[in-house]
């Protein structure tokens, strides 16, 4: 076979660790068996995965094949991102229950690779026999609690985990028509159950995946609820077992977790469907599946693999297999996606003891319905055009009035200096801006766009979806954002300037060392440090509460109250941001001649007066641009809010951008609505800076 005939396939996935290397080895086996095809595996960070698919596939830049999950299926089909598989696929080849989630309108949209659902992990050194009922589970947990450990660790506030209990108590997230059904008595009972566990300290508080892993590894909890991905997180010296979740004692029904199917999917517009399908079938074939199961510890969807002795005798994998039989497949509907966030909020509120289960669930139900509300009605274009035109005229008139033309001789050489930057900015910022802003006039989910005129703005500004005083309303978020910006900028400047002043003396020893150490927060990627800060603020295991305990103070549940959660966000962002101000100030300070201060000192000015009347006014011009831009960045600082408080409690610490993000990605891809948010954010910032400018001008005169 000549080189020219080699077919090249690109496959995207978000695997890492053992799953990734098993996937690679299976691919190597495929290439050996098919010398005419070469396969390139591209690991895309999970954080950018769906984003990248949505951007690339519609423009023909997608892969030939990608690993996707069944619960995103309907969305992807609607948006025309994936094609159905036209070839005959023998259903008996796959574990039963793995194909239906991939079928939509009688057509198959993926070759299943593995199924994923959570199950019960337990440490064998603590528990000989896993609990079969919730009563047994409670008993074991009580025993552990008596020994000052916690019984069970899992992400109790996450609806996807809680779903197991929900089903065990007879409740559902969505009804048969895919309508939200969270406000049932069964659901309330399931939450009361978890609340009971929490009140009796049987489950770890504020558990995140990372904390569950840590507790389980350190033996601080005997049981954990997690999925196959947890296997690679468990350390080698921990002896553990996996079992199905227990039967709910009061109903006699098993706690049934949600399950999803991982499958290889064919992106629309790719021209290599046949070859790609060939590869997909190979990977789901017996040998490749065996490799993935043994090396990657995947719970594979291939039926024949489960007949192999080495798999059959693997207690861990078979436990997942058994659990899968009881699991409830995740709906493909976008209603499910819209349920996660309200569900989580309701769970948190109940676990904190703020409201009872019924009220919390009713609230969640209303939120889900609100998120899924029909789009604003399509708008006629003519009235819109007229209103836009009028707006434009008004703006023009206002500017004309505000700034009478001053005649001056233009210096054309300026354009030579300005042009390169202006062109780059114009193309790469202005164009996306116009496109993004235009999006706000549509009801747009990524594919289907309906023109709605000012509809999105109307909904946001009239706070139609929520009450005016709800944390989810635009105005509440605006208030929080304003507070957030002011507090941050003030602290950034105060701390940055203070440290720069301390670092300033040329006689100070180790000056360079201090300076270098103090900019470290700026240098370390903020994704990881933000998470570390979140860990520091953990109620049960965080360092800050440990410190409070040392000082004989009550530990604080940081993310349970608005002000403490806000303070946690603030602390993180101030920590991240002060080095920048410090460096800017150092630069500015270095330009102040010493004599000026010395002269003032001789005039009898105290240190404070010298600072106030000489140093600060002199560094002000240099700091002003940094403050101005810093304010804009802080206004739009998404990462910290999202990673540290995550909007807790009840979304009240969310700022406008994180709200916009949630509308775009967590509440059923309402891009138009999110874009309207973005436009409003933009207008607010414009107004803010214009106002700020007027203020500083007034001050100057």
């Amino acid at each position, binding site marked *: 076979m000549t080189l020219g005939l080699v077919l090249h396939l690109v496959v995207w996935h978000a695997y890492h660790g053992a799953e990734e290397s098993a996937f690679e080895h299976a691919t190597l086996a495929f290439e050996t068996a098919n010398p005419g095809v070469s396969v390139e595996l*591209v690991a*895309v*960070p999970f*954080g950018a995965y769906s*984003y990248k698919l949505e*951007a690339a596939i519609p*423009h023909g*830049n997608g892969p030939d094949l990608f690993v996707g999950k069944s619960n995103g299926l309907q969305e992807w089909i609607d948006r025309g991102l994936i094609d159905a598989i036209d070839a005959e696929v023998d259903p008996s080849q796959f574990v039963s229950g793995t194909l239906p989630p991939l079928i939509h309108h009688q057509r198959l949209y993926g070759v299943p690779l593995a199924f994923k659902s959570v199950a019960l992990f337990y440490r064998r050194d603590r528990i000989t026999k896993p609990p079969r009922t919730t009563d047994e589970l409670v008993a074991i947990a009580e025993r552990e609690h008596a020994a000052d450990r916690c019984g069970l660790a899992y992400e109790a506030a996450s609806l996807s985990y809680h779903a197991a209990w929900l089903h065990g108590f007879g409740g559902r997230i969505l009804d048969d028509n895919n309508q939200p059904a969270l406000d049932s008595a069964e659901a309330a009972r399931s939450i009361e159950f978890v609340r009971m566990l929490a009140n009796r300290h049987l489950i770890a508080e504020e558990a995140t995946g990372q904390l569950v892993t*840590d507790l389980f*590894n350190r033996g601080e909890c005997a049981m954990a609820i*997690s999925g196959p991905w*947890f296997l*690679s*997180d468990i350390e080698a010296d921990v002896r553990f077992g996996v079992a199905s979740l227990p039967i709910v004692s009061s109903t006699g029904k098993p706690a049934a977790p949600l399950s999803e199917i991982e499958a290889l999917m064919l992106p629309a517009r790719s021209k290599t469907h046949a070859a790609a399908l060939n590869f997909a079938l190979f990977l789901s074939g017996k040998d490749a599946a065996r490799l993935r199961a043994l090396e990657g510890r995947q719970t594979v969807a291939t039926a024949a693999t489960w007949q192999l002795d080495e798999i059959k005798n693997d207690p861990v994998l078979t436990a997942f297999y058994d659990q899968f039989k009881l699991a409830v497949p995740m709906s493909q509907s976008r209603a499910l996606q819209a349920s996660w966030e309200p569900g989580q909020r309701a769970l948190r509120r109940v676990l904190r003891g703020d409201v009872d289960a019924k009220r919390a669930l009713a609230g969640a139900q209303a939120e889900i319905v609100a998120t899924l509300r029909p789009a604003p009605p399509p708008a006629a274009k003519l009235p819109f055009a007229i209103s836009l035109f009028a707006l434009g005229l008004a703006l023009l008139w206002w500017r004309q009035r505000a700034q009478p033309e001053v005649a001056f*001789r233009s*210096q054309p*050489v300026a354009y030579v200096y*300005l042009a390169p*930057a202006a062109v780059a*900015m114009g193309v*790469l910022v202005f164009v*996306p*801006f116009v*496109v993004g802003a235009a*999006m706000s006039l549509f009801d747009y989910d990524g594919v289907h766009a309906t023109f709605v005129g000012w509809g999105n703005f109307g909904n946001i500004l009239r706070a139609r979806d929520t009450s005016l005083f709800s944390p989810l309303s635009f105005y509440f978020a605006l208030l929080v954002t304003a507070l957030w910006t002011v507090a941050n900028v003030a602290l950034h400047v105060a701390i940055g300037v203070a440290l720069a002043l*301390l670092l300033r*003396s040329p*006689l100070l020893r*180790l000056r*360079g060392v*201090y300076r*270098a*150490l103090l*900019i*470290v927060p*700026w*240098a*370390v*990627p903020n994704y990881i440090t933000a998470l*570390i800060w979140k860990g520091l603020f953990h109620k049960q295991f*965080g360092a800050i509460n*440990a410190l409070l305990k040392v000082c004989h103070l009550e530990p604080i549940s940081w993310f349970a109250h608005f002000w403490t959660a806000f303070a946690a966000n603030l602390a993180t962002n101030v*920590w991240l941001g002060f080095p920048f101000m410090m*460096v800017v100030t*150092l*630069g500015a300070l*270095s*330009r102040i001649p010493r004599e000026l201060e010395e002269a003032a*000192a001789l005039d009898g000015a105290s240190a404070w007066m010298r600072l106030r009347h000489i140093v600060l006014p002199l560094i002000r011009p*240099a700091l002003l*641009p940094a403050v*101005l831009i810093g304010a*804009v960045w802080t206004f739009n600082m998404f990462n910290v809010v999202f990673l540290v408080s995550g909007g807790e409690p009840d979304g009240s610490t969310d700022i406008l*951008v994180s709200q*916009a993000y949630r509308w775009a990605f967590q509440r059923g891809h309402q891009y138009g609505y*999110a*874009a309207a*948010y*973005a436009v409003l*954010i933009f207008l607010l910032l414009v107004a803010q800076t214009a106002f700020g400018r007027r203020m500083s001008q007034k001050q100057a005169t």
Partner: protein
Amino acid sequence: MKPSLAIRISIHALLLAACAITLYPVAWVVKTAVTPRQSFSPSPNPWPSTWSLSNFRDVLGTHQGATWLFGRQLLNSLLVSASVTIVGVVLACGAAYALSRFRFIGRDFSLRGFLLSQMFPGVVTAIPLYILLDHLQLLNSLAGLVLVYSTTAIPFCVFMLKGYFDSLPHELEEAVLLDGGTHFDAFFRVILPLSRPALAVTALFSFLTAWNEFILAATFMSRPASYTLPVAMQNYVGDFSTEWGHFAAGAVLVSLPVMLLFFALEKHLIGGLTEGAVKG
């Protein structure tokens, strides 16, 4: 004026406290990196109980076929960040000089435009940006990434530099003009050499903008060999589980060049060159 001993001691005490608070969270990154596990435990004690370089070995040793991925990605990151620094600072210098020194039609508009460009949240512009890069044939190329990052860096650099240029006396350039030079001579031979502290701040800033970004890089680049380091590091973060040990080791490795850069620039950051530029 040498401060008294008591003052010096209290300055050191304050700075030490500041350093301690600053480094406390960072200590966990280091602890997680040198602990040969993939879990991450925020206990009050940031001192590692075990030391091992295995995470660093794993992160450094990534290969794709014969390609040494880490090396390749480091090179990509360095190339992209260095280019962004150069492109960003160079373009911004010119723009800032024009805005600081010349009167021309559109001056006010451009000045505001640079600030306005930072105000539209990226949430909704990323996909249009993708489409644009696709049209410009710049997807999957480091050049595209450089351009995109530059547009984030430029406005800040323009503002910083304009502020700095504003504070330099006009007479310096006028002297050049009379000495027979052009505006360009004034700019390149006098203004730029004098602006080293501001240039250093903006260079550091531009570099960092590019160095730590991953969402856009992951969206625009589709080959592991063309990834930048943050994208590669982000690959250790999964949907449900994260290889914290690897991720932290990566974070430490990623931060090192920045620290080096800071050391290299620090002399200029604190320059004080313009003292005595003009007397009186």
